[in-house]
């Protein structure tokens, strides 16, 4: 097991979509400086669970979350928790790249602007450059920061979205199948990037590509039919699964 302290702890979480019980009694710790992968067949609830970690489920009508999810010990579903600040601390990258139809610069600068993170234009410029550099995009776009973000290639768009998430200086980054809409070359770039970002942020990545989970993560959680079947160090899960269902899934028996 990893020795990093937990950043987010979820205990006994249930998620309902109307009458549909999507997540059943899931308890999990997300550790600092680790990459945690959620794997499992489609529809197993891993994305649903991910979205409850920064309360993006609030935007879905009829969605209800019960249980206890804490960020640094604070209950994120508590009344006094400001969801806007929560999402600034727990950033998210989506399945399909979704840059704003604005310039590359504005895409990255938007978060710092609404949160008032920069006192001056120069400081904002620094934040944008740092975020794009960390996302490995700076050298490709530094001469065309005023071009539209939607004019970039798919892989570049996804890295722009990562830069946008980094720009508000989050503590946790949630990635919901960030490579599923990308070609293999772009996927490799994102995986490298995740590798580089590790250590700065706690990263949670949902994927149904088991090789990807094995490549990028230190810890892996296997979900099936809304339940957390097994959670442990990635090396253990892939080499020595304790549960029969985990073994069936990673050996390709179903999925």
């Amino acid at each position, binding site marked *: 097991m990893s020795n990093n302290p937990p950043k987010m702890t979820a205990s006994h979480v249930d998620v309902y979509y109307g009458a549909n019980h999507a997540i059943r009694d899931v308890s999990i710790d997300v550790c600092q400086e680790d990459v945690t992968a959620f794997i499992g067949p489609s529809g197993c609830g891993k994305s649903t669970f991910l979205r409850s970690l920064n309360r993006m489920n609030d935007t879905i009508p009829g969605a209800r979350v019960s249980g206890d999810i804490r960020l640094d010990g604070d209950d994120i579903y508590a009344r006094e928790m400001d969801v806007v600040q929560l999402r600034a601390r727990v*950033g*998210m*990258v989506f399945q399909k790249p*979704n840059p*704003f*139809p604005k310039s590359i610069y504005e895409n990255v600068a*938007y978060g710092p602007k609404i949160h008032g993170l920069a006192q001056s234009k120069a400081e904002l410029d620094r934040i944008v450059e740092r975020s794009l550099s960390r996302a490995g995009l700076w050298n490709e776009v530094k001469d065309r920061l005023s071009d539209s973000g939607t004019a970039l290639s798919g892989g570049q768009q996804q890295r722009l979205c990562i830069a946008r998430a980094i*720009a*508000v200086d989050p503590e946790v980054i949630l990635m919901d199948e960030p490579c599923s809409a990308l070609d293999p070359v772009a996927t490799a770039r994102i995986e490298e990037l995740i590798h580089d970002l590790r250590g700065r942020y706690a990263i949670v990545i949902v994927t149904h590509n088991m090789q990807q989970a094995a490549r990028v993560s230190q810890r892996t959680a296997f979900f099936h039919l809304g339940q957390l079947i097994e959670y442990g160090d990635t090396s253990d899960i892939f080499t020595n699964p304790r549960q029969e269902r985990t073994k069936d899934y990673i050996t390709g028996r179903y999925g």
Partner: protein
Amino acid sequence: MSKSLVPHVPVSAAEVAPHRPTDWRSDAMERRVRRRYAAERRFRLMGLGAVVVSAGFLAFLLIVMIAQGHLGFVETRVTLPLDLRQARLGLTAERLRGPGADLALAGAGLERAVDAAANRAFATEGGAALLSDGAWLRVRDAVKRDPHLLGRPFTLDLPVASAIDVAAKGNGTPAAERTVAALGAHLSRGIARDFLTGADSTDATRAGIWGALKGSLLTMFVTLALAFPVGVLSAIYLEEYAPRNRATDFLEVSINNLAAVPSIVFGLLGLAVFLGTLHLPRSAPLVGGLTLALMTMPVIVIASRNAIRAVPPSIRDAALAVGASPIQVVSHHVLPLAAPGILTGTIIGMARALGETAPLLMIGMRAFIAAPPDRLTDPATALPVQIFLWSDQVSRGFVEKTSAAILVLLVFLLAMNGVAIFLRNRFETRW
């Protein structure tokens, strides 16, 4: 389905006829195919015919309006020799330079002097009756511009009376036609300034559309100022924030129904509520604008909702995920992206309101208003109502004025729809 398609079930083995393949080249079959192709061509022509008939009607309507209406912008003038020295007006060039010029001119009996000059110059053709009631005003303006005219004889082209004007444009009574023939070279044509700058009048040659146009503009101002913010804000509420419940359903149903309520019912509402209960002034652009705003608002709500719905949810997710609040998501991202659609819908709704007549009749904007309104509470009329009022006039001179006013209205509507189409094409985004 035709019977031949039903498989024939043989009763006994003896009845089974040997299967013969269809002979597609037989004469009968070829005749049949030819007939089917002819039917195809006829059907296609019928479709084209329907489009042509509809478009033809539009063209016919426009041609009729232009053929009649263009004359409304033109007036017939007669050249009148004038010598104001004989009229003893008691005016001097100095008095006309001072601030009291209008008062002095109004009281000087200029109208009588002009009539007298006309009686002298065209004694046999009809004298002062030839001139429009407003002719002396042209003389007044000329004298005001150049006070020296008081001291010497001069000639001026003055508008003729409506009957003569109509006859000169080839549509008059035989008597008037004879007068026109007699006047011959004394007649000329010019732009009808009174039509573009004046308000309603009982005399066709003096009737103008500026008063009605200004009434329409004031009304539209009120409509836009109310319907646009209210419409866009309700659209935002319904699309982005409204909870799913009975109350919201009722809200949606009432907006969709309001869009289908006949416009005259809105007029009844305006009459009962704005005039009957709230005692707002009758015939005022304020009330007209309020009434049309209630009518236009659902149109703007529906267009805005469509535009807001077209903004992909992924944009909202992206903004939420960096910590934008729901209000910031809408004001920073959704609204700017939906703006072209919202504006297009608003312009189309406003164009409809501009052409609307019936509700304005209900709230009394059909009065005879001889001065352009200056304030929102002044009695006023609107362009389409003016068209309706003039169409009821017996005097032949109003036929061309009505058509000309229609042309003005159509130009405004065309311009608005043109802008809407331009916006739609220019900013249309596909996601």
